[in-house]
């Protein structure tokens, strides 16, 4: 009982310090996400007039409508081409980035897709933006399964459409992808940097010594700080969500999605606080901790897929991403932000892994913190 009460006392102290500097904290929490969301989202948002070749084998009312739908947006610049080979050679020559083949069966789906898309993946962001748009347009005329796409390599023969994989990537644009990444980033900044620097400051200033001579449970010092980090993450994530929504991002899952994000965010904050205190226990000064923050903290975010999808990473980075707790939190965020769903399998994996991470890092943090007090 006293452990809980002591932890709450420490938590209240952290909160009072936070509230005493509220204005600075709001500005600090808001500025970086704002800058990243504004500037980096141009990676996706600025794309327009992507050259696309369309081969219309169906030549019916619906296919004509599809072509006008595709051309209606600024995103694509549609060129009508009479046959597939000519279109593919344009793709090889770099004259177009996408080839859309509307098969004679369109818009019906007799067991196989009736729209086949070939693309080169020279510009990741273009692909991520355009493919979902085409898929969306095709879906207006029939079942989603009508759409099939594959990457086209000039040297390779065009493969049988039936073996290529349907696109499963984000339904939103890059800015939504980045949005969910930035939610993760703000937790790294507020917890990973905040908790460690706070602990070091308290230690150097003698505050921790002042706590230790009182009859409180030593673990409560760490638990109180961890509790505060979790609550602080709610604050930080809210700020990022507000900024994101003001900038035009959306959360597909709505209010329930925000609740999920906050829950995962708190778990992630606990993990990051643990890591932060573990490192701070082993460090003598602030400079050393900041070097840690820059060399470990930021990569944790990058590797987890904060800015680019993990699938685009080389195998070694993908392997590292497996042990990065942030990967699981971001995965959870993405489902909620981009897909509007949260599949059960993902709940179990993401929440389970985060809980284990949180428990282990907190336990190690407490043990190391105690060991530094001789």
């Amino acid at each position, binding site marked *: 009982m006293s452990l809980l009460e*002591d932890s709450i*006392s420490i938590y209240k*102290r952290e909160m*009072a*310090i936070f509230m005493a500097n509220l204005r600075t904290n709001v500005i600090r929490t808001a500025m970086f996400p704002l800058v990243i969301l504004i500037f980096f989202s141009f990676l996706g948002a600025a794309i327009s007039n992507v050259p696309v070749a369309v081969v219309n084998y169906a030549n019916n009312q619906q296919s004509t409508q599809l072509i006008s739908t595709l051309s209606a947006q600024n995103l694509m610049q549609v060129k009508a081409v009479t046959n597939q080979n000519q279109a593919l050679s344009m793709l090889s020559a770099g004259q177009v980035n996408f080839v859309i083949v509307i098969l004679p069966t369109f818009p019906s789906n007799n067991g196989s897709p009736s729209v086949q898309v070939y693309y080169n993946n020279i510009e990741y962001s273009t692909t991520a933006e355009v493919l979902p748009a085409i898929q969306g347009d095709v879906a207006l005329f029939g079942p989603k399964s009508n759409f099939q796409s594959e990457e086209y390599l000039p040297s390779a023969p065009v493969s049988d459409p039936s073996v290529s994989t349907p696109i499963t990537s984000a339904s939103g644009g890059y800015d939504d992808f980045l949005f969910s990444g930035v939610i993760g980033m703000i937790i790294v900044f507020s917890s990973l940097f905040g908790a460690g620097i706070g602990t070091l400051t308290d230690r150097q200033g003698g505050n921790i010594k002042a706590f230790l*001579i009182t009859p*409180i449970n030593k673990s409560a010092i760490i638990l109180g700080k961890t509790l505060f980090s979790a609550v602080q993450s709610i604050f930080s994530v809210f700020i990022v969500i507000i900024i994101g929504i003001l900038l035009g991002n959306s959360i597909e899952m709505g209010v329930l999605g925000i609740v999920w994000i906050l829950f995962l965010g708190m778990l992630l904050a606990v993990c990051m606080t643990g890591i932060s205190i573990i490192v701070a226990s082993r460090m003598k000064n602030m400079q050393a901790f900041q070097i840690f923050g820059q060399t470990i903290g930021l990569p944790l975010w990058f590797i987890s897929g904060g800015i680019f999808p993990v699938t685009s990473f080389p195998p070694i980075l993908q392997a590292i991403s497996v042990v990065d707790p942030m990967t699981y939190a971001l995965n959870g965020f993405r489902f909620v932000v981009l897909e509007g769903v949260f599949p059960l399998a993902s709940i179990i994996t993401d929440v389970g892994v985060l809980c284990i991470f949180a428990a282990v890092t907190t336990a190690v943090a407490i043990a190391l913190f105690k060991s530094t007090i001789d």
Partner: protein
Amino acid sequence: MADIIKIENLTRKFGDFTAVNNISLSIKEGEIFGLLGPNGAGKTTTINMLLTLLIPTSGKIYIDGFELAENHERAKQLMGLMTQETVVEADLTAWQNLDLFAHLYHIPEKEQAKRIYEALQEADLTNFRDKKAGTFSGGMQRRLGLVRAMLQEPKILLLDEPTTGLDVQNRSTMWTRIRELNKKGTTILLTTQYLEEADELCDRLGIIDHGKLIALGTPSEVKRIAGSGKVLEITVNLQDVQKVVSLLKTKFGLNATARTEKITAVLEKDKEDEFASISAMLERQKIPVLSIGLHLPTLDDVFIKLTGAGMRDASGEMQGGRTNIRWR
């Protein structure tokens, strides 16, 4: 009176370095006890062991009759601490500072507000209760630190260099407060490197150097170590120092100690008349004397007598060896 703190053969090592070396002493309930020594002598290490912040390498500590090692929590309730760097929470208000520690000391919820209010009055900070402690002057912060240390009404107050860095006025205010607390029955253990502070405040004191307790007793008892007579102090030019020391030895049989330009020697009670002859002798030898005088022994003289070096010298030499809590 009963011993409220009893230290038996206390030793603490940091690797090869022995910070506290086999110290034994008792502190009686209700007294002001001073631990005097230069920086790095082992004062803070001793205090930290009393506070359970450091585990002794060997030896035992009894607080109010209970062995400390087995009664951490109980002992912590009995002791309050104020240090030279006593940190108030800069971002918290005076009230929040005291409220935090009222919780940490597990003061019953019902009593908290009353105690905090009294503490603020005691520290003369009632008008500043909702101001951030970081905006307070040094003297105000120490006052807040002192009432915070007294919040759980400890039987023992540990003051680790309570007046280091304070100006003269704040120092004498602090002394007054320490005496007041003592009059109300609080046992006080203070460490200091100021001889006049130990002399002025303490009922008893111990001198500690290089981790060893080298003297123990009331200030007048300890001063008697320097001799029952008076201390002769002569300042001459550096090149004459050795000559004067040997003259004092051969002509007057005095064991003089020289530190740079200052020579000190103890004139026993019956030899006090020799002051005039010594003065005359120096004149005859045509040694320019910068100053010459007799004074009653001070703790500094005791320290010189015991260690061969002055407090300030020792403190400079040991600057690097200061041990606070060690963070590995």
